[in-house]
């Protein structure tokens, strides 16, 4: 069985031989995190409310790296905050379920969730400075986590923390252990934050834009570190980012979010070689690529993320979509199977023909992956 959690009706794709992306699925049929129909609504004063996340389904299998891609306001960060129980209670309504290893995180008692956080569940944020306590040394912040989740002697905790810092690529870890966050550079702080997150060998690591605040050369270091750690420790990871480039190199499966809903889900090869949803398609097309020919004009997505309609009336992307038709104006556009492990929420999805004419010379090599997914 490959699709244990998929709610959309299967269309006989199950029995198709699984190639690369599905391997883990075969090995571990049970998802580690299973988010079903998650909705987050913020209510403002005077009865107004804003649905930031609107019926989101996704799952993460052990050892898998799942990407959530979206622009600001797409609800990608709110999704992770809701899963981690980090949203304020007041003015926020969370519906649906998020089963971690079978138990629902959303209805879990607070103490139990706190015990889970930092233990089996860990998170890395965009801004390492604000997520580290500025008046406590790096070492203390690490050993605190270790003591909170395990019975461990002070010396062992110290040794383990220093070892972890070393593994996270921090030079001279014994000295850094006694330093305060402000004494570290941005890249070092992010490494320290990752080291803290990994202190108790979490089974799931949620990274919310972990490299956005960093320079590209530092970003490359941190991404490399994450990839290695995840591979070595077998940790599952959710990578939340707006950067398609980060997703392309890192994730096994990718969820694309727009205006609070997942509009496309695919293995990364299929997502980039044959994007189906018009938003994904447009996004991949509009990004200037280093390996692109310079005289090739960019094809932007028109309008701004603010040009939107509620999902209850039409496709939220419809006002910006060049392929909008009357059929897009409906309250129920399902996330439909469009290929193996590939789903898109689009009435008029991009065809292979469009994808192949749009792709640049370099992307032509992506055809292999595309054929595989068909």
């Amino acid at each position, binding site marked *: 069985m490959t699709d244990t959690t998929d709610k959309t009706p299967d269309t006989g794709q199950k029995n198709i031989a699984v190639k690369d992306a599905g391997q883990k699925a075969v090995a571990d049929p049970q998802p580690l995190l299973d988010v079903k129909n998650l909705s987050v609504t913020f209510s403002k004063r005077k009865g107004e409310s804003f649905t930031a996340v609107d019926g989101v389904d996704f799952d993460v299998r052990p050892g898998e790296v799942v990407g959530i891609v979206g622009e600001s306001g797409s609800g990608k960060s709110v999704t992770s905050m809701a899963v981690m129980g980090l949203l304020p209670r007041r003015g926020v309504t969370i519906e649906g379920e998020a089963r971690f290893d079978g138990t629902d995180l959303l209805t879990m008692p607070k103490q139990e969730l706190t015990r889970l956080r930092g233990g089996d569940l860990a998170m890395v944020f965009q801004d390492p400075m604000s997520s580290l306590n500025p008046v406590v040394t790096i070492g203390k912040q690490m050993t605190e986590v270790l003591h909170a989740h395990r019975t461990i002697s002070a010396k062992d905790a110290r040794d383990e923390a220093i070892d972890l810092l070393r593994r996270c690529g921090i030079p001279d870890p014994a000295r850094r252990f006694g330093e305060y966050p402000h004494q570290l550079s941005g890249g070092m702080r992010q490494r320290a934050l990752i080291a803290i997150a990994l202190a108790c060998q979490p089974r799931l690591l949620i990274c919310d834009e972990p490299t956005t605040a960093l320079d590209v050369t530092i970003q490359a270091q941190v991404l490399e570190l994450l990839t290695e750690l995840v591979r070595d420790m077998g940790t599952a990871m959710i990578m939340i980012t707006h950067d398609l480039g980060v997703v392309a190199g890192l994730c096994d499966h990718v969820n694309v979010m727009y205006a609070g809903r997942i509009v496309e889900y695919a293995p990364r090869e299929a997502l980039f070689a044959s994007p189906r949803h018009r938003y994904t398609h447009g996004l991949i097309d509009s990004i200037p690529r280093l390996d692109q020919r310079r005289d090739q004009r960019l*094809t*932007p997505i*028109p309008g701004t993320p603010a040009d939107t309609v509620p999902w209850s*009336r039409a496709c939220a992307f*419809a006002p910006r979509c060049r392929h909008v038709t*009357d059929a897009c104006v409906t309250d129920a556009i399902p996330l439909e199977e469009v290929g193996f492990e590939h789903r898109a929420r689009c009435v008029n999805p991009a065809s292979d023909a469009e994808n192949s004419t749009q792709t640049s010379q370099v992307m032509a090599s992506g055809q292999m992956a595309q054929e595989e997914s068909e």
Partner: protein
Amino acid sequence: MSSTTHELPERPASLAAVMGEQNVDEKGISLWAGAWRRLQRDPAAIIGGIIVLLFISVALAAPLLAPHQPSSVEWAGEVTPSSLPPASADHPLGLDPFGSDLLTQLLYGARQSLIIGVVSTLIGLSGGLVLGGVAGAFGGWVDTLMMRIVDILLSIPALLLAVSVAAIVGRRPEALMIAIAAAQVPIFARLLRGSMLKQRNQDYVLASFSLGLRRRTIVMSHVLPNSISPVIVQATLTLATAIIEVAALSYLGLGAPDPTVAEWGRMLVKGQERLASAPHLTLLPGICIAVTALGFTLLGESLREALDPKSRRR
């Protein structure tokens, strides 16, 4: 590649119908207009505004509203050391210990508080604007000089200053005004300077400079107007303290020498002796002071919130 337009694609009629319900604001909303809108929706601002309006109109219309003359002590004969005559149709709130009509005193007291409060705040504000504005506009050694002057002003206790001023100019309302204003100058000066320094580091100032605007124009028409809103908020809040200070200083006997001029602070003194037998003599002016100060504070705080950049987003 196909389209180069930045415009949104054409919408089918059905989508346009859905979109059409989103109201498109054709007219722009300036920051002040937006702040005004938010103020109108804020209950605290409405309550504060009503109190302040009431206070101002009472102060202005005191001669029309008051049943008697404030200086009249013609009913002194009815007052005995142990008792006051009860309220009557002629004196709805009764008499004060000196035989004046209490209601009249309260109404005229508003007038006195308003005049002294507003005038002293205006003096303080202008002094602060000049010191802070010059410091913020020029920076460098001018800034240092201005701030040292402010430090000196700050080091003089307001009460001591009030007494000294009163000693020099005599016991006149002007002494009160100068004393209160002097205490306010540093507040406004520091606030404006800080605000201007913050604005000066904004990109739009650099943008104006790169466009070739003159420094004077940049300071006068960009930096200053953007720095002024916290000062306006502070002025409203300061009015509240000023009114309390007026009362406090005249309670200490630093107000007008003429005992017949109605003033809330002095009414407290007058009522003090009969606190046990006639508590309303102190209570009523006390409430007037508190409510007026509350009104200005509420208004000031809502103004601050309405002008806050964080709440500006729509």
